[in-house]
């Protein structure tokens, strides 16, 4: 080889013609032939890069467009004086200002979603672990299929079921909770005789977000490297200890992401809340009493048909609040996932 005359190491231009040993190879610089500082890309690679970049940009554009729409449409309500709002918007007559109207809605939205999450996450993790690590294969795939089917049920159906079946069904349980655990502030107050309270909403929302959290967690748990599971077993770990040492730490960030996906859905859920909850506009932690809370999405759906122009703007302002909450939730989820990156097993 004429190595001394050819400073270009192999591999700088994989697509180039093969050099024959006898002929004098042309001098090449380490830089690509076309543009300085750019690695040479060809065909599929370049197409893929632009598609990926384009898709990423499109998401940003859509997101920005939604944000701009919300801000522009909410502007009249945001800039109007409180007196003007209270006078012109019929459904604000019990509120003194926009903040006074939005606040309890934000509170109710977050409360319902958090209740759903608290109820759904442990169950989802348990089902996911059962499917990934305990159940025999046939049972596992059957069960996974059933859980996925839950996601296919339309939310109106959940609403009907929640209001007509679940609420009367759980009412005695709520009464019992109220009478025995009533000293805990959450279960205080007069227990609603209909069962159409925020805790029932939480249960229905939990059922609705269960499939997505279970499905994502299951996939994450199944991806635990066999290598580490065997390391734990060889140290004398029982199956549960093995899960605690490897599967759960490995799956942690995935489960957090799954929970956030679920939370996102619970925050925005409209129909089920609208049909089940007996609404109120209070900052109230009473989970079993009627007429305490309302969520943003359900409230928009309820007021939308009869809203005036200014009323519409107020509703969109509440929608803007929901948008911001969802963004904050997603960003804090990312922060949680990133915090212990060194120990995540990803490196």
């Amino acid at each position, binding site marked *: 080889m004429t190595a001394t005359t050819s400073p270009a190491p192999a591999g700088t231009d994989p697509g180039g013609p093969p050099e024959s040993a006898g002929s004098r190879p042309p001098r090449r610089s380490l830089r690509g032939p076309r543009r300085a500082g750019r690695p040479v890309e060809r065909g599929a690679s370049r197409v893929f890069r632009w598609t990926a970049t384009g898709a990423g940009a499109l998401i940003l554009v859509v997101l920005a467009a939604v944000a701009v729409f919300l801000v522009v449409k909410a502007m009249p309500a945001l800039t109007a004086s409180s007196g003007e709002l209270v006078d012109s918007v019929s459904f604000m007559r019990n509120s003194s200002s926009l903040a006074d109207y939005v606040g309890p809605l934000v509170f109710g939205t977050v409360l319902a979603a958090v209740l759903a999450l608290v109820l759904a996450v442990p169950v989802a993790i348990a089902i996911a672990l059962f499917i990934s690590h305990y159940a025999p294969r046939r049972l596992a795939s059957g069960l996974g299929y059933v859980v996925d089917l839950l996601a296919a049920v339309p939310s109106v159906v959940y609403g009907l079921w929640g209001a007509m079946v679940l609420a009367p069904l759980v009412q005695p349980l709520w009464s019992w909770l109220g009478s025995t655990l009533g000293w805990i502030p959450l279960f205080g107050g007069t227990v609603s005789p209909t069962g159409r309270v925020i805790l029932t909403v939480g249960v229905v929302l939990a059922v609705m977000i269960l499939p997505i959290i279970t499905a994502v967690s299951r996939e994450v748990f199944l991806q635990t490297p066999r290598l580490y599971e065997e390391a734990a077993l060889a140290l004398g770990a029982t199956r549960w200890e093995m899960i605690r*040492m490897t599967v759960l730490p490995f799956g942690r960030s995935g489960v957090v992401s799954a929970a956030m996906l679920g939370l996102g859905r619970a925050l925005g859920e409209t129909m089920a809340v609208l049909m089940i909850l007996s609404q109120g506009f209070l900052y109230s932690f009473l989970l079993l009493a009627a007429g305490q809370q309302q969520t943003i999405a359900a409230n928009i759906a309820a007021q939308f048909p009869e809203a005036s122009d200014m009323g519409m703007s107020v509703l969109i302002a509440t929608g803007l609040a929901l948008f911001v909450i969802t963004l904050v939730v997603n960003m804090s989820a990312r922060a949680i996932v990133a915090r212990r990156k060194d120990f995540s097993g990803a490196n």
Partner: protein
Amino acid sequence: MAQRIDVKDLNIYYGDFRAVADVEMSVEPRSVTAFIGPSGCGKSTFLRTLNRMHEVIPGARVEGRVEIDGVDLYAPDVDPVAVRRQIGMVFQRPNPFPTMSIADNVLAGVRLNNRRISKGDAQDLVEQSLRGANLWNEVKDRLDRPGSGLSGGQQQRLCIARAIAVKPQVLLMDEPCSALDPISTLAIEDLISELKADYTIVIVTHNMQQAARVSDRTAFFNLAGQGQPGKLVEVDDTSVIFSAPREQATEDYISGRFG
């Protein structure tokens, strides 16, 4: 602490496939036994039956007896978890838990046995085990960093530290040096020679020189053909196997005339 192993008439299956047939051998306490043989002859499979790790693979099963100091590991009343706590294992690919710090890795097995270990005892044990694995000086300043931040050779020694921290009766090693450079390999071979004083060690290796250097006894496994079960051809003192083996197949294999 070290105990002897007696294997009697052992057949090992993956589902219907018999991977290893009719193994009959003994391992003396405080000795190093090397398993050699061509790829696919069942060395790893056999090694994993010695601490009941074979059965974690779906469909895998074992017939025959493996006795540790006279107790059959496969007797119905024996708990595989208890067996694995007494028989440590080091894998071919280093596998320290990446979600744990170096110190927690060393203590992982100990915490399983005995949750309430005092802080001082834990520190002592970490130091003692890491010294035992010739790793202490390299990591003593970063015990709280993740184990995955170490080099491959360091990770493997961390795995050895983790295995010896529980003071097992027997230590099984499946090609512990195959992913390592010559210097790390020598460090681990030295370590094996030291550990021999306290443990019964069984090591699988593809490296003839390594088998000759570290082991007292050598077992040669072979495969009659595709789809046939692997068999133990002969087991003898390492010096005998490498100078005057009884079987022609052994001589062919170690002199590189295999195949």
